[in-house]
Each structure stands twice: as structure tokens, then as C-alpha cells.
């Protein structure tokens, strides 16, 4: 303890001359840092109520509530997060995992109350005064918990595709599939998009964790055509996907395809629970996906089921209409065989006419009509009966059944739907030069955009705003399409623009074949008049109630003939719903 040690500390008195570094809060505000994790704000318009924030919140601080003014709509559950600041720990996990990036944090941090009940609030709805603060913790798209980029699907190169009818899509490898499946946040918004309400998050999660058998079993709970859907589904679910708002939606279809393709023998995989046989029989007209779905679940419930099919192979439109490069025949056979193995009786080449329909009504306790749409719409222009004008649906059927078709060197496909794309791409595979003529713009096409892209890659030309005027004969066995151009007329908000012919202009196109693919209609001529008059038909489709029953008790209908969507998954959904309806009907407790 020298004198130095006594005097040295006194040097601290130098500090008196220094300016204090005290910050004068609360008299003056002090702003927190740029990234500060303060109070939440939520863009209610962007938010889709997926509930990922709820799932990731470590403290159970976030729950989902209804908010006045927010209605559920496509891809939006209608709920909004409510945050309890008596629970929150401002970790920002919710922000980092918000798929739409609507939830973020401001750098606001003062929230003082005299009562403890004022700490629950709905960001974005309850106005707290810091809604417009720009600074604060935000999600960086590339560095967050959400994986926005889809694992790319490998495809055949376009040059190879046009040479063969081999499948275009090559499928995921196991690692790729698990990586893709793992992107799913499990919100379940996609369920609303699926007509069949498949348990999408569940089977995707099963794929992600490598439990493929379980995954397929989950699919088969309400879809016996999982593999079909895995290949050709219109996948409306993907447009509901919460990841789709800021990135690519999860490839639900390809994942389904991946899981189902792994198993060649479904009997060993699917664990069916068969009910006691019941003394009731059901007749199903049309072995399309809807009819077979109904048959499968009815058979599992113990009913005797007979399916009547006019064509030589089961599968309906999936057999006749979908080209083999999208949906190979062995795959269809695998699924149909599994369904038939559950005790479904199938009668092929059995065209139901009025006479036979009367017989079926006597034989069966209930009848399900799933005949689909087999009659094409016509163009309705002069000269349409020209032999070189063919209809896509007939054309595709012939191709699929290996019947000879002749299309020449150059064809034009009229229409913009999936069938048009199929017809065009099939024609490319026959070596023809193909033009698709559509009366609206490309972005208005109802076909799957992947199909459009695929067609273009394969060298199909797409002409927009074409309105056919008449068909004329042309030399050398060719045909001339006379058409006019259209202009798009705005129809006001919420409605898609209408094409209107520009008068006075006429163009000509000489091709070998004109393939008309502007849609199909139902052919209900097999119904006997006494039945037909009781069955309500609305705009060409049979009208059914929510149990798929027509206005004639005991006759159910589903699939394209009854719904407006006309795709495989809706047919399957109809079939599944009809099963419940038929069961209730047979028990006499129809609601």
C-alpha cells in the first residue's frame, strides 16, 4: 500500500470534466436499431391465415381468430394471428417463418398499461400507432426458415420428347422428394383447394420423414387413384399453397407421384379394412375414375358392386383421353387392378342403353352414373362437317387405343384447354407441325401452364385471339380455316375480358387437319324417358345434391357429367361423396 496506490484512484476525478453520456429518455424518444425486434405488425391483405406463426411460436403466444372484414377465400383461411404480449418473447421466429412475409416487427418497444388485460392484440387490425413504422426486424427471403424454391423436376429434353410417347416427367429421386416434401409448412390451406380434401400435409410430411407406405395409405383413405392424380391432376391445391405467394408452391402432385410410384404391388402396401359383406348391390355406369372410386369404397364397405363400361378397357377418360406420355397405361392398370381386387365386378364393352338401364334399375339397389362427357362441342361454323375436321376427344381415344389415325404434316388445334394441349402435343409426336389457335390470350388459357410451356418447348406454335369463321376445302386433300382476329374487351373488374371479333378482316390458314378441342358435353340419351324426365339437368349437367344424389331417389351421379369442373380429382371426389350418400340412402337415413 504505497502512496502511489493511494493517489492514483483520485485520478478518476478527471471524469467530472467529461460530458455525461446519459441518454435523456423518457423525456426524449430514442429509436431502436434498424433490425430491432419490437412489436409486430401484420399486413392483413397479404396474410393468408396459414397459422405457421402459431405453429412456430415457442410460447403459445399466437392464436388465430376471425377478424371482421376478412372472409375466407381461395388460399386464405380467413383467420388472422392474434398475439398475446403476456406470452411473447420477441424472438422473431414467427417473422422468420411467415410464408407470405406479411408479419414483421417494428422497432417500437414501449407498451405500458395499468391493467394486465390490454396486452392481447391483432396486429394489423387493432391500430396501435406504429403500423407504418418502416424500421424493424424483417424476414430475408433467402435466409429464413421457409424454403421458397422448389426442387426442380427432371424432364425429358424436348427434342427427345417429340420422338416418343415415353413419360415426359422423370420423377424425383428419393433425396429430392424428401427435400421437396420437407418444404411444406403443414398449414393445410391446400386442403380447401382439393375437391377430394386429401390429407395433403399429412402425406407430404410422411414422405418428408421417409414413411412412404404410410404416406400412400393416407392417400388411399380418400383417393384410390393417387398415382393417377400424381401424374395428371389439375392440382388446384398447389395454387392454394402458402409458399406460393412468395415462392414456388410445394410440388404436391409430383410428391404424390413419387410416393405411389415406389410401390409396384399395392396389395402389399395398402392396409384395407373391409367391412362385413352386406346384402345390397350397386350398379355403376362408367368405369372412369369417379365410378371406380365409388366402386372401391363401396366394396370396402361390404356392398356388392358392378361396374358397366362401354369401352374395352376401364379407366374412362383417363384411359381414352390422356395421352400416354402423361399417363402410361401400366400405371392405370396397376390402380384399376387393385380396385378390382377388392371385389368389384367389372363388365366391359357393356354399353348401357335405355333397355339395359331399366334392367339395371331392377337389379341394383342404387345406381351411380359416371358416364363423363363423351360428345364433343362443335365449332358451329360453316363447313365444319369437312372430313379433315376431327374432334380432339375422338382423336385422342383412337391414339390411346392404338387405332390408326392420319393427321398429315400440319395441323391446327382450336381451343385452349388441356385437351387441346394434349391433342397438339400428340400431333407433334406424330411429326406434324402444330398450331394452337385460341380465341383469347395465352394467359387466359384454362390449360395448365406447365402443359402450355411443355407444348411450346416441343415446338407447338400458339396463336392468340383467333376466331374461326368457316372451314373450306383446299387442294391436295387439305383444308382451309378462315379466321378473324379478336380484340379483348374489358368486362369490368373481376370478370375476364371477352374476345370480340374485329370485323372486316379475314385470314386464311391451310392445314392438313383441323382438330377441334373446345370442350365436350354429356350424352344422356341412355336414360329412359320415365327416368330422364325426373332427373333435373342444368346447363348440360345432371343436377345433384350435396350427397351426389339426383332428383331421382336412388340414382346418383358424379364426375364430369355432374360437376362443372370436369377433371379427374373432382370425379374422384364425387365418387367418394356418393359412397357416403349411397350408404345413407340404403340405410334410409338420407339427410
Amino acid at each position, binding site marked *: 500500500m504505497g502512496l502511489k496506490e493511494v493517489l492514483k*484512484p*483520485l485520478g*478518476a*476525478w478527471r*471524469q*467530472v470534466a*467529461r460530458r*455525461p*453520456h*446519459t441518454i*435523456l429518455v423518457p423525456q426524449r424518444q430514442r429509436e431502436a436499431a434498424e433490425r430491432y425486434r419490437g412489436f409486430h405488425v401484420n399486413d392483413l391483405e397479404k396474410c393468408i391465415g396459414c397459422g405457421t406463426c402459431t405453429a412456430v411460436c415457442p410460447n403459445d403466444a399466437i392464436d388465430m381468430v376471425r377478424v371482421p372484414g376478412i372472409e375466407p377465400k381461395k388460399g386464405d383461411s380467413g383467420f388472422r394471428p392474434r398475439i398475446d404480449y403476456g406470452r411473447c418473447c420477441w424472438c422473431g421466429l414467427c417473422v422468420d417463418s411467415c410464408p407470405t412475409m406479411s408479419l414483421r416487427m417494428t422497432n417500437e418497444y414501449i407498451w405500458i398499461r395499468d391493467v394486465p388485460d390490454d396486452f392481447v392484440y391483432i396486429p394489423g387490425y387493432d391500430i396501435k400507432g406504429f403500423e407504418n413504422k418502416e424500421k424493424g426486424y424483417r424476414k430475408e427471403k433467402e435466409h429464413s426458415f421457409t424454403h421458397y424454391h422448389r426442387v426442380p423436376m427432371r424432364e425429358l429434353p424436348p427434342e427427345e420428347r417429340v420422338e416418343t410417347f415415353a413419360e415426359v416427367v422423370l420423377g424425383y429421386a428419393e433425396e429430392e422428394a424428401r427435400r421437396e416434401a420437407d418444404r411444406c409448412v403443414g398449414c393445410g390451406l391446400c386442403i380447401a383447394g382439393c375437391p377430394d380434401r386429401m390429407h395433403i400435409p399429412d402425406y407430404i410430411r410422411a414422405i418428408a420423414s421417409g414413411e412412404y407406405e404410410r404416406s400412400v395409405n393416407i392417400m388411399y383413405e380418400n383417393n384410390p387413384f393417387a398415382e393417377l392424380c400424381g401424374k395428371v391432376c389439375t392440382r388446384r391445391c398447389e395454387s392454394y399453397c402458402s409458399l406460393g405467394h412468395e415462392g414456388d408452391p410445394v410440388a404436391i402432385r409430383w410428391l404424390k407421384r413419387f410416393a405411389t410410384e415406389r410401390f409396384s404391388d399395392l396389395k402389399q402396401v395398402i392396409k384395407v379394412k373391409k367391412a362385413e359383406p352386406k346384402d345390397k348391390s350397386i350398379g355403376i355406369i362408367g368405369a372412369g375414375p369417379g365410378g371406380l372410386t365409388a366402386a372401391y369404397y363401396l366394396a370396402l364397405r361390404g356392398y356388392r358392386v358392378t361396374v358397366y363400361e362401354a369401352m374395352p378397357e376401364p379407366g374412362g377418360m383417363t384411359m381414352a383421353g390422356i395421352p400416354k406420355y402423361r399417363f402410361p397405361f401400366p400405371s392405370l392398370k396397376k390402380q384399376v387392378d387393385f380396385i378390382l381386387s377388392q371385389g368389384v365386378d367389372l363388365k366391359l364393352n357393356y354399353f348401357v342403353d335405355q333397355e339395359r338401364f331399366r334392367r339395371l334399375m331392377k337389379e341394383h339397389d342404387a345406381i351411380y352414373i359416371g358416364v363423363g362427357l363423351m360428345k364433343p362441342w362443335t365449332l358451329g361454323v360453316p363447313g365444319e362437317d369437312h372430313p379433315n375436321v376431327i374432334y380432339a376427344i375422338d382423336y385422342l381415344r383412337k391414339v390411346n387405343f392404338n387405332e390408326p389415325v392420319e393427321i398429315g404434316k400440319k395441323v391446327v388445334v382450336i381451343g385452349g384447354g388441356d385437351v387441346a394441349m394434349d391433342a397438339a402435343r400428340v400431333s407433334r409426336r406424330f411429326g406434324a407441325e402444330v398450331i394452337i389457335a385460341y380465341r383469347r390470350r395465352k394467359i387466359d388459357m384454362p390449360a395448365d401452364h406447365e402443359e402450355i410451356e411443355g407444348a411450346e418447348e416441343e415446338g407447338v406454335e400458339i396463336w392468340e385471339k383467333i376466331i374461326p369463321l368457316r372451314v373450306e376445302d383446299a387442294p391436295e386433300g387439305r383444308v382451309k380455316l378462315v379466321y378473324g382476329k379478336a380484340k379483348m374487351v374489358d368486362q369490368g373488374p373481376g370478370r375476364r375480358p371477352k374476345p370480340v371479333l374485329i370485323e372486316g378482316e379475314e385470314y386464311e390458314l391451310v392445314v392438313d387437319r383441323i382438330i377441334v378441342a373446345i370442350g365436350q358435353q354429356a350424352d344422356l340419351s341412355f336414360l329412359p324417358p320415365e327416368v330422364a324426365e325426373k332427373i333435373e339437368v342444368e346447363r348440360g349437367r345432371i343436377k345433384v345434391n350435396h350427397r351426389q344424389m339426383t332428383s331421382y331417389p336412388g340414382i346418383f351421379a358424379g364426375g364430369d357429367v355432374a360437376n362443372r369442373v370436369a377433371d379427374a380429382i373432382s370425379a374422384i371426389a364425387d365418387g367418394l361423396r356418393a359412397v357416403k350418400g349411397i350408404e345413407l340412402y340404403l340405410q334410409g337415413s338420407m339427410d
Partner: protein
Amino acid sequence: MWSKIFYAFLTLLGGIAYGLLLGGISRKITARMQNRRGPTVWQNFIDLWKLFRKKTAVSHGVMFYLAPMFRLVGGAGTFLLVPIVIDSPYLSNFSFGGDLIVIMYFMVLGCLGMALGAAESGHPHAPIGVTRGLSQMAGYELPFVISVVVLMIADKTATVEGIVRAQQGGILHWHLFTHPFAAAAAFISLLGMMTSYPFQVVLAPQEIAVGPPTEYSSTFLSYMFSGRSVFAMAKYLLFMDLFLGGAGSLLEAFAKTFLVFLWPLFITNVFPRFRLEQSVRFFWTWPTFIGLVDLLRISLMR
């Protein structure tokens, strides 16, 4: 006589106020040293009023109630015996012959009363603090007494007034300069009296919470608070009288007490506290030794 009492009462109030103000200034200066702004200088008045008007529901017996009064009375007694302005009819307080010795006893009285009351409170920290306080007192009283004795011998008087008068006639007559060793000893023991930091073993927050006043609250605490400030004032005045030549006017008194006040403040913020035995040992060695030097010198000179 009554007017004298009246004036004495006024000076007492003034002393308390000035003591509180000095406390506030010390908080401000300390704050500046600690790189912060600190409270206003009036903060101690607000604190005192708040404490004074606070409810209390604590009861630990009669002694417990009386202790703060002891403290206040001890402080006031000391204060009233120390002349503020010499020769002033109003501000010379109750100075009388031999009062220096009485003052020193009064200073002990406050502590003793405190000790009794705190011991009554039943909180274990209090007796520990009291023991410490008393031992500490035994420590710093020794050098202080020695230096006072030096002054008494030198000036041949036992009154404060006499000592002040002996220092008149210029700054060099101050005992600070005529008896530097005694002054040094006394000023070191002032650190102990003011419980400034190296010797702050009584309240010792990190060790025994706040020591003796642990159980005291509200009004009692306000008495102790004002007692403490008047006590401090008394000590400043006493040291002013003893070593800085007293004050001829009120302004001079203010200035000189402020100087004395700065000394403990100067030390207190830069040292941690000693342990009790280190503290006592310190007082019994260095300041005692220094004081003895002057005592020896004065005895030899005579």
C-alpha cells in the same frame, strides 16, 4: 434568552436545509464523476418530505422509536453547540466554556442512541452494523481526540470560540497550517465520522444491506435523514471552527463549510470500503501517529 432559542431554532432549520442541499450537491458531483447527470440538487428535500409523510406500521418497541430522535437530538445538540459565525448574536449558538468536550460527547450520543434502537429492531443486520459502528467510532475518536487535545493545549482553551479566536489574523493563523499534523489526523478521522468510503463499514450495502437502519422506515427514517444531515453540518462547522479559522460572516461560513464538505466527497467516490478491522487498524496507526507527532511537538515546544 428566548430570542436566542428562537434564533438557534432557525439556525437548526437552516443547518438541516443546508445539509440537505450539500447532500444534493454531493449526489450531483458524484453523478458527474460517474458519467451521468444525477438528480437535481433539491432531490434530498423531496426524499425527506416523502419519507416524512409516509405511513409506518412497524413497531419494535420504545427504544426503536426513540433511536431516530436520539440521532436527531444528538445531531441538533452538536450543531447548536458549534458557533457558526463568531461574534454574531444570532449565529453563535450556545457556545460556552468547555463546550468542546461536550460536543465530543454529543457526537457519541447520537451513535449510541442509534445503536440502542437498531439493536431493538431485531433484524440481524442491525446489530452487526451497530457493532461495526461502535468499533469504528472507537477507531476514529482516538486521532480526533488527539488532535483536539493538541489544539486545546496550543490555544489553552476548551471552547470552540476560544479556538476560533486563536486563529484570527490571516489565513496562516489557521490551525490547518499551524498544526498541520493534527489537522491531517482530524481530517482523516473526519472521513470516519462522515462514514466516507474507505471507512464506510456501517451501512455497507453489499455486506449487511443497510446496516443499523435496516428496519427503519418512513417518518423514523426522515428523522434519521435530517439528523444525519444536521450532524454532518455540525461536523463541517466544527472543523471549520477548529481548523479553518471560523467564519466572520454567513457567507464565509458557507464557503468554508463547503470546503470541508468537499474533502470527504473527494475521497469517498474513489475508494472501496475497508473491512472493519482494517479500518480500525488504520485509524489507530496512521492518523494516530500523525496526531501524536503534533502532540509531541506541542509538548516539546512548551
